């Protein structure tokens, strides 16, 4: 036990490690805030640098960037309605309306505290329950991932507006975009256009990156829509009460804990990550919150609380399969596993026994990193909220430039910029005709999870639908998920909703 404390406290007591960790968190916040720059990208750049470093500083920096980056995505989501990362899509839905009311400062304050709480809860679960959760997570079968995706698709109801048809249309569009490109199982080209050998065709073979679609539909289209009304004066931001009080934290605590547990579990599943965790937590908050002060979609704090605590809890969750089984929980953990190999470690079942120091250092670093997040998260808020006060004729062109730069920086590809502009214009018309854009992003995020796992699940039972149904009802995890889906569907029908009102 004393040894474990020793390993864990290195993160706090070794000044060099502390510096790398803190620097990582700070850097991560700003990398996360810029759409197009992602934690995955930063981590894969870093791994090249860190080859010549020692292993602990390298890991400290990566964890710092990861923690900061997952949080950072919420900043631009709140201030500009451009999620810095797909895990902040739900944040934009509630955060941006708050900014429009002059409450951007408070919104950022809440996201900092909730990210910290989520991160902490995720780390505690990682420290105490890792081996058990990992054993549970690997039993998730393709049919379970398929059911999770179905559950995710039901979120269309929560992300859209009152018109169900528009929401379903937007979600279906997202699924369709997700299907474009080479089929990863058979190599068939699907919906790939353009002459053979052209750059355009090659691009389509790779599929359209969902970050490109996200920047276009959220950022670019928002700027275009705002340009219609240049006369409206920007809202003056209130910046006097940024740090949420204890009463506020305690009031939302049950929701934070629920969302964090959900986030940790979804993060621990090797097939799902922070983007899906945040959206599911948001949906869960929307269903369980009886009387929000402000309706959802117009700046409900509950929405921010749920998705921000869930996506940071996901970091701890994703570490579970990485540290106990050597299986990546998402793209960032995959890179960290590679980094550990390069540094002569063997991530996986042997790590806990052979390199206990590294295992516990990572957990210690995550605790300390979250404290850094709490500190750095409150820096620069006053300055940042000023962005919203910038006159529109100056701000909107800057957003367009940022969108272009963001799209280009994903792959250094000009094609990404063209597609981003295309989706920006598409988003403009969607917004003009009241079609919500968030379900489209949801569709793209879920397309692979939904389709590939359906094919796997059906293949396992010999490609028969009745066989798949029997397979689902005879396995406990699948049955629970199926029942949850049925309940979700029934409770959203008009029949049930009317009875509740009466």
């Amino acid at each position: 036990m004393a040894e474990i404390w020793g390993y864990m406290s290195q993160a706090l007591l070794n000044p060099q490690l502390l510096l790398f960790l803190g620097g990582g968190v700070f850097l991560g916040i700003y990398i996360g805030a810029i759409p197009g720059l992602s934690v995955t990208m930063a981590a894969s750049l870093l791994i090249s640098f860190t080859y010549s470093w020692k292993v602990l500083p390298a890991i400290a920096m990566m964890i710092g960037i990861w923690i900061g980056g997952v949080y950072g995505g919420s900043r631009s989501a709140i201030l500009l309605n451009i999620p810095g990362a797909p895990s902040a899509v739900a944040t934009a839905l509630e955060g941006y309306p708050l900014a429009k009311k002059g409450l951007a400062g408070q919104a950022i304050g809440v996201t900092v505290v909730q990210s910290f709480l989520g991160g902490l809860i995720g780390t505690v679960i990682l420290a105490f329950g890792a081996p058990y959760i990992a054993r549970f997570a690997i039993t998730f079968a393709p049919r379970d991932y398929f059911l999770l995706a179905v559950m995710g698709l039901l979120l269309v109801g929560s992300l859209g507006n009152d018109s169900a048809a528009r929401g379903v249309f937007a979600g279906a569009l997202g699924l369709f975009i997700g299907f474009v490109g080479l089929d990863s199982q058979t190599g068939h080209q699907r919906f790939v256009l353009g002459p053979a050998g052209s750059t355009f065709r090659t691009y389509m073979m790779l599929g359209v990156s969902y970050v490109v679609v996200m920047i276009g539909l959220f950022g670019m289209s928002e700027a275009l829509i705002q340009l219609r009304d240049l006369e409206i004066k920007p809202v003056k931001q209130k910046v006097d009460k940024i740090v949420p009080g204890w009463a506020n934290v305690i009031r939302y605590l049950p929701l934070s804990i629920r969302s964090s547990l959900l986030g940790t579990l979804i993060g621990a599943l090797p097939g799902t990550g922070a983007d899906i965790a945040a959206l599911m937590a948001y949906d869960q908050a929307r269903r369980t919150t009886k009387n929000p002060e402000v309706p959802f979609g117009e700046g409900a704090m509950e929405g921010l609380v749920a998705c921000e605590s869930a996506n940071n809890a996901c970091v701890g969750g994703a570490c579970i399969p990485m540290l106990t089984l050597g299986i990546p929980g998402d793209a960032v953990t995959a890179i960290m596993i590679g980094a550990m190999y390069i540094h002569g470690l063997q991530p996986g079942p042997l790590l806990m026994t052979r390199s206990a120091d590294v295992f516990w250092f990572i957990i210690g670093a995550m605790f300390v990193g979250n404290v850094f997040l709490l500190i750095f998260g409150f820096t620069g808020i006053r300055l940042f909220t000023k962005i919203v006060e910038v006159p529109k004729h100056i701000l909107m062109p800057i957003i367009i430039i940022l969108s272009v730069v963001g799209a280009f920086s994903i792959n250094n590809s000009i094609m990404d910029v063209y597609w981003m502009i295309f989706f920006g214009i598409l988003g403009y018309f969607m917004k003009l005709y009241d079609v919500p854009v968030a379900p489209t992003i949801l569709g793209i995020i879920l397309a692979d999870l939904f389709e590939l796992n359906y094919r796997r699940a059906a293949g396992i039972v010999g490609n028969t639908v009745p066989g798949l149904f029997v397979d689902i009802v005879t396995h406990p995890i699948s049955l629970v998920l199926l029942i949850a889906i049925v309940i979700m569907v029934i409770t959203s029908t008009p029949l049930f909703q009317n009875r509740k009102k009466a």
Partner: protein
Amino acid sequence: MKKRWIAGLLAAAMVLSLGTAKVKAADYPERDIQGSIMWSAGGVCDTVSRAIGAIVQEKLGVSIIFTNRAGSGGGVSTAYVNAQAADGYEILFGAENPQIAKIMGTSELDYDDFTPINLYSTTYGAVSVAKDSPYETLEQLVDDILAKPGKVIMATTGAGGLPETVAAMMADINGTEPNMIPFDGENECMTAIMGHNADYTITTLGSAASFYESGDIRILAMIHNDKVPGYEDVPYITETYPDFEKYLPWGPFYGAFVKNGTDEAIVSKLTEVFREANADPAYQELNTAKGCFPMDISGEEAVEYLKKYRAVTSWLLFDSGVTEISPEGFGIARPE
């Protein structure tokens, strides 16, 4: 008169650009290099490629910025690098898969379209099951697949991946027809067998190595015709089924490539640097940890190796009926 001016300017521009092209080859590399890895992050191809890349970039004095462009048995990466300029600033870090892309119909490109810089690692296939699997030996597994055709589930990585290729060898020799379910990568195949969502898998040794060591899986056989160093306890497949001899030795490899048409000076500079990196003990240590073995071949030798690999594997897949596209159509001659 004006036309002459324009012509003169054009000619001058051409001469100048020729000059700069020469200078560029001599100064190579003067900016960061992009590296496209054919398989997803954290896999064997990814890890060995990043490891050798890390040494290469130090020797070159510029960074190699890696991007994983996984998908379609490597077809996504070959398509990407082929669409970029042949200037030595785009390096393809790939595995054996493109050599069967044409006959599998997954891509129109294979390593004929690229110049090999260095093939740095090789490894073998391994048949794995979960630690509590009812199959104790390869023979039991094969007999059960034969008894229940289409019922025993094998986790694969999709068309053109190593699992499906070895499954084709087994179909040819043992007549086995498993129910093949494609997962995203070899790590996911290991998860599938450990979570009992598949009965067995055949992956590169590297993906199975750490789970084998920890006792979470058992390796029933190596796809090799001799004992594999470090894994002397594990039976090799010709012990049980000597007919495999005709395909062996056979195994995946990992290498670095540039697009055809890249300046020879750049190719030889890269070749030299990769050779030096191969000798680095840190790289070889990682290679062993990842269940791989040293290879280090380049130039004509690498071209010959690639051609032979393509011929053997393509005809194997065609003869066993995995694909209906004949290798002959692409001028791939049947190996003797």
